[in-house]
C-alpha cells in the first residue's frame, strides 16, 4: 500500500463508502463481536498484569531474603550466632545479616502462642535474617561452610515454598497471554467471516465496479474501511465497559490477597487502550486479505 492509499484510507472517501450498500444488521453484529472480544481482552490483560506483578514480587522478595536458624544449647548459642554472623559477613553477595532480637522473635511467635509466652524458658532457636544483594550468593557453598563451622545452623533460602508460588503466578500470566492471543485470533476469524459474507452479498456491486474500471484497491477499500471502523468502534466500547468493570473491583488489600489485586496499576491503565487499536489492525488485515483474495478470483 502506498502512502497515498493509506492517506485516502484514513481520510475516507464518502463516495467510495456509498458504492457499497449499507448493511444494518451484520454491521451491528460485527460491532457487538468486536465489543465482546475487547471486553474479554481487558480482563485477560488485567489477569496477566496482576499475576505478572505477583510473580515478580514473590520472586523478588523471596529470592533476596533467607533465614538462618541456629539451634544450639543455651550456653553455645551466642557464640555460634556470632560465628555465623562472621561467616555471613565474609560471604560475597550478602548485603546484610542481622540476628533478630528476643522481642522480634516473640512478635513472630505471638500469632501462634499468644502474647504471654515466656520465651526465656523455651529453647527457641536464634533467627538470623539474611538479605542478599542484587548478585545473590552461593547458597550451597554457604550451607557447606556453615555445617562445618556452626553445626547448629540451618539455612533456609525459602526456595522450597517460593518455587511453586512463583510457578503458579507465572502459569497464570501465561494463561492470560494465551487468552489474549486466542481473543485476537477469534476476532480475526469473525471479521474474516463477516467480511467474506459482505463480499459475497455484494458480488454484483463488485462486478459492476470492476466493469466500469475501478481498481482492486478502490473496491477493497470500501469494505476494509467499513470493517476497520466497526471493529475500532466496537472494541472501544467493549474496552470502556471492561475498564469500568475492572475499576469497580474492590481495591487491593492484604486480607484479600491475590484476588483483589486483579486490575491495573499506574501506567498499566494505559495498556488497555491498545486493544481497540490492535482490534482495528486485526480487522483491517483480515478484511484486506479476504477482499484481495476475492477480487483475485474475478477477471
Amino acid at each position, binding site marked *: 500500500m502506498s502512502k497515498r492509499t493509506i492517506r485516502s484510507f484514513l481520510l475516507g472517501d464518502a463516495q467510495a463508502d456509498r*458504492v457499497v450498500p449499507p448493511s444494518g444488521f451484520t454491521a451491528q453484529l460485527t460491532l457487538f463481536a468486536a465489543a465482546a472480544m475487547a471486553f474479554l481482552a481487558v480482563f485477560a490483560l488485567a489477569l496477566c498484569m496482576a499475576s505478572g506483578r505477583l510473580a515478580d514480587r514473590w520472586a523478588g522478595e523471596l529470592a533476596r531474603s533467607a533465614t538462618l536458624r541456629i539451634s544450639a544449647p543455651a550456653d553455645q548459642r551466642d557464640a555460634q550466632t556470632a560465628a555465623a554472623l562472621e561467616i555471613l559477613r565474609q560471604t560475597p553477595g550478602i548485603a546484610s545479616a542481622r540476628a533478630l532480637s528476643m522481642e522480634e522473635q516473640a512478635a513472630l511467635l505471638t500469632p501462634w502462642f499468644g502474647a504471654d509466652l515466656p520465651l526465656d524458658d523455651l529453647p527457641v532457636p536464634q533467627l538470623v535474617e539474611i538479605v542478599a544483594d542484587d548478585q545473590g550468593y552461593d547458597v550451597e557453598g554457604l550451607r557447606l561452610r556453615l555445617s562445618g563451622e556452626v553445626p547448629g545452623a540451618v539455612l533456609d533460602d525459602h526456595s522450597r515454598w517460593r518455587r511453586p508460588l512463583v510457578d503458579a503466578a507465572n502459569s497464570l500470566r501465561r494463561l492470560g497471554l494465551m487468552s489474549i492471543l486466542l481473543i485476537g485470533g477469534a476476532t480475526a476469524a469473525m471479521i474474516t467471516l463477516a467480511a467474506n459474507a459482505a463480499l459475497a452479498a455484494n458480488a454484483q456491486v463488485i462486478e*459492476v465496479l470492476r466493469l466500469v474500471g475501478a481498481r482492486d484497491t478502490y473496491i477493497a477499500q470500501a469494505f476494509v474501511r467499513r470493517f476497520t471502523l466497526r471493529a475500532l468502534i466496537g472494541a472501544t466500547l467493549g474496552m470502556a465497559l471492561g475498564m469500568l468493570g475492572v475499576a469497580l473491583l474492590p481495591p487491593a488489600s492484604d486480607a484479600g490477597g491475590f484476588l483483589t489485586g486483579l486490575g491495573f496499576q499506574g501506567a498499566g491503565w494505559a495498556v488497555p487502550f491498545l486493544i481497540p487499536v490492535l482490534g482495528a489492525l486485526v480487522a483491517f488485515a483480515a478484511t484486506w486479505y479476504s477482499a484481495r483474495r476475492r477480487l483475485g478470483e474475478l477477471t
Partner: protein
Amino acid sequence: MIELENVGYSYGGGELLSNVTLSLSPGSFHFLTGPSGSGKTTLMKLCYGALKPTSGRIKVFGSDMRRLDRDQMAILRRRIGVVHQDCQFLDHLPLADNVALPLTVSGRDVGAESQNLSELLAWVGLGNRTDALPPELSGGERQRAALARAVIMSPEVVLADEPTGNVDWEMSQRLLTLLAELNRMGKTVLVASHDLALIRAAKSLVQARVLRISNRKLQLAGADL
C-alpha cells in the same frame, strides 16, 4: 484500437472460437452477428479483457493484453465503454450516481462534471429520471442508462452486447441512433446483435461493416443482408 490475431477460445468442453483475426480501426462501426451461442458475447468479453484468449494475441490501444496487470486492466476499462444485454447497476444508488460511477471510481470530481452528466442524461432521454433507483427503470431505460454510463468517460471504443435484446423495435431504433451519433463523434463502435432487421435499419444511419461468426470463424459478411 483493438486487434485480435489468430485468437482462439475454448471452454472446458470444446473450441468456441478459433483463428479469429480482427482489427477495429478508429472511427469504424462494426456489427457482430451470428446465431445464439456462436460466441458473440465471448468475443466481446475477449475485447475488453473479461476473458483471456486460450490462443493467439489481443492488442488493445497498442499494448498486449496479456502483459497488463489488474490495475492496468482497470485503467483500460475506463477507455472502453461496455453495454451489456443485462446491464447491472448499483441498485441502492440513484440513476445519476450510477451513470457517474465511472467518474467516481476513477477519482474524478463528479461535481465538476455535473453539466456533462445532465447533458448526457438528456441525450439518452433520461433527464427526468435522475433520482430513480435502477430497479424502478424499464428495460429500455436501463439500456439507455447503461449506454450513458458506458460513454461518460468519453471512451475511444464502445462495445455493446445485444443492447436491444430486451426492448421493443421503437426503442432499439432509438438506441441505434444514439450509437450512430457516437460513431459520428469519432468513437469506434462494435455492436453484437442477432437482429438482422436492426442491422439493415442501420444502413441508412451509418457506414457499418458486418462481421459474422459461423463455424467458430469470424467472417466479413457480404454487403447485402
